[in-house]
């Protein structure tokens, strides 16, 4: 494991997985279930940005702002029109909501294919500087930006959850939605905030990662799975858990094929997922509760 280039690739992939996992984490903490539409949100952020730049010669920053805005609207609609009514009718049941967001995942992919077309579009880089050379390795501007934004996002979310009123409310609602409701806390507003921030994080992640290999309307499903696995590995015991899970998966994604060749990373990821599901389903970080 001496190739610096491989470590940089693992770091980039890890940050990507970690950011998606952070979006999952926020909805999980605030609303108590896995929002499998995170991948399509990320796809929408990258695809809409590219589409606006290519089709309308729009500036990258303007296009990115519109794409993030559109994704946030989608995230809000997921909560207001799908999850909330389904949970209300099912008495707060988790499974019906999971099935509903799975349907949302495919609906967004179909919608994106219809609106933006099916071919892969080139990702638009917000960074305009030259690639950074580190010894024998090269880090692309978009990769560097992803790493920096990941660090900033995790620090900001950690501070927000710990020190702001909304952040503390998020944890309170996540701990017990029923108790929070009885105490008169604004449960619905807090849940909506969780969806909105998750939408922003996913959209930004998608548009920052898209320059690496492009983005198409079907990218969302595999991105959803990657983010979910990072949450499974990292756990939900800490806001940093998704990052640890993401970085571990990034290392598996890069180093397993390096040592075992071909597409062995698929088996590597499957093995990691099975091991965690079987022996540590709560992930690496477990939330400690004082008795």
């Amino acid at each position, binding site marked *: 494991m001496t190739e610096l280039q491989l470590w940089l690739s693992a770091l980039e992939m890890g940050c990507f997985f970690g950011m998606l996992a952070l979006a999952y984490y926020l909805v999980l903490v605030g609303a108590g279930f896995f929002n499998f539409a995170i991948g399509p949100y990320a796809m929408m952020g990258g695809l809409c940005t590219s589409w606006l730049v290519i089709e309308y010669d729009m500036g990258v920053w303007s296009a990115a702002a*519109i794409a993030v805005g559109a994704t946030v609207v989608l995230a809000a609609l997921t909560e207001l029109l799908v999850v909330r009514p389904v949970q209300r009718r099912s008495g707060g049941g988790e499974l019906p909501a999971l099935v509903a967001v799975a349907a949302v995942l495919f609906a967004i992919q179909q*919608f994106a294919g219809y609106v933006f077309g099916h071919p892969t579009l080139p990702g638009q880089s917000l960074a305009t500087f030259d690639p950074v050379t580190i010894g024998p390795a090269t880090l692309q501007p978009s990769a560097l930006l992803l790493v920096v934004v990941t660090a900033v996002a995790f620090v900001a979310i950690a501070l927000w959850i710990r020190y702001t009123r909304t952040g503390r409310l998020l944890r309170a609602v996540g701990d017990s939605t029923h108790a929070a409701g009885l105490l008169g806390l604004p449960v619905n507003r807090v849940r909506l905030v969780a969806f909105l921030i998750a939408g922003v994080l996913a959209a930004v992640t998608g548009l920052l990662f898209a320059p690496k290999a492009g983005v198409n309307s079907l990218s969302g499903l*595999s991105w959803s799975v990657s983010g979910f696995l990072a949450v499974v590995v990292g756990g939900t015991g800490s806001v940093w858990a998704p990052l640890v899970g993401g970085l571990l998966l990034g290392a598996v994604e890069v180093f397993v094929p390096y040592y075992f060749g071909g597409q062995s990373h698929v088996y590597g990821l499957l093995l990691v997922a099975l091991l965690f599901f079987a022996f540590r389903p709560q992930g690496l970080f477990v939330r400690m509760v004082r008795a």
Partner: protein
Amino acid sequence: MAVSGATTASRAIRLVGALVVSALVAAGCGGGDDGTEAPNNGTATGDPIIIGMDEDSTGPGASYSTIAGKTIRLAVQDINDKGGVMGRPIKLVVENDESDPTKVPATLQKLGSQGAKALFLQSGSAAIMQAKATLTQLKLPAIAPTGVTSTLVDPPNNELIYMLANTTADWAKVYCGAFQAKGITKLGVLTDDTTTIAALNKALFGAMSCVQVTATEKGAANASDLSAQVARLKNANVDAVLVTSVGGAFEVLAQNTLASQLKDKTRFSLASIGNQPSSWKLANAGGLEGLIFMGSINQENPRTKALTDLLKEKNGDDYEITAYDAQAWDSVQLLKLAIEKAGGPDDPAKLNQAIQSISGYQATFGQASFTLSFSATKHLGADGLCGLSLIEFGADNKPKGPWAAYQPPCAPA
């Protein structure tokens, strides 16, 4: 009741608001002409001649199938505008098998049931291989405009299927000439995991004994990272790398990674990357520079020049013609010619014989003297190697012209 009514109204307002926002998002982010509108009858009258098209609008073949599909529609519209075939308009019916061999029989059956008299198959090689038996069952002649694997038109079940361009057997000869010219003896291969490329690799490398393939690395067609595969190729100390993929994001990710991690090695590729201008934009700055691909567009061919002008007129001045465009255009013209020779589209046996009687058709791709001919035993149109040329990418990630180190010999047809 008043509270309930207010709640209902509030809910309705929120729902309408959400729908309006959705509509605005859709209007703001999407729409537009993507070139997939069905051609109209133009000035032609009479009963339409229905032609089926198996077009991968999604799936691994979408990167090339949609380019060819767009030009097929353009060619059909052009024919219809000029009075049609024997006064009758051509009507296209379209289905998609996503290059999935298991979906092919149902897809072709569906096209047949819609009244198709002949088919265009723009799917992956593995899917088209599967199609051969179904064509025999349906008794429908078919042209594979973008096919390049010779087994597609080899027996068995090849009575009704035709291809235009030089096959992988010819590609192997050209690559071998290039490797000998550059003294390349150890080759590394980076390949995607599609069934189409698996079939192509088998045919290509089976005919390429001139070089030792010392390392073969595979990645998923939707891979996000190939640095491990390229690091393994680097460790194998190969003289050059050949990327075999259906193109699109995988190809560009591979070239970006090779350009970054294996700067000093000569890179070769198949035809896909040269025929997918939209993919060039995916590459990092200079990521394609020095890449050599199997091309077949030569602007000294007057028919290529004429089609280029037409495509630019229809699609804008920045449109880059590809071999897929030219082969799609020629496929439609060949079918038109065959229908006229057969006296109509309704007798599949006569239509098939008419295709086999076409000889010396001057192609819109390849060099000026390049022609296509068919017979009962020759279902591959290309007459000689003149349909191929090794093209090199420049620093601007666009093809800059023929590779100076080697070009295939071009004997007159």
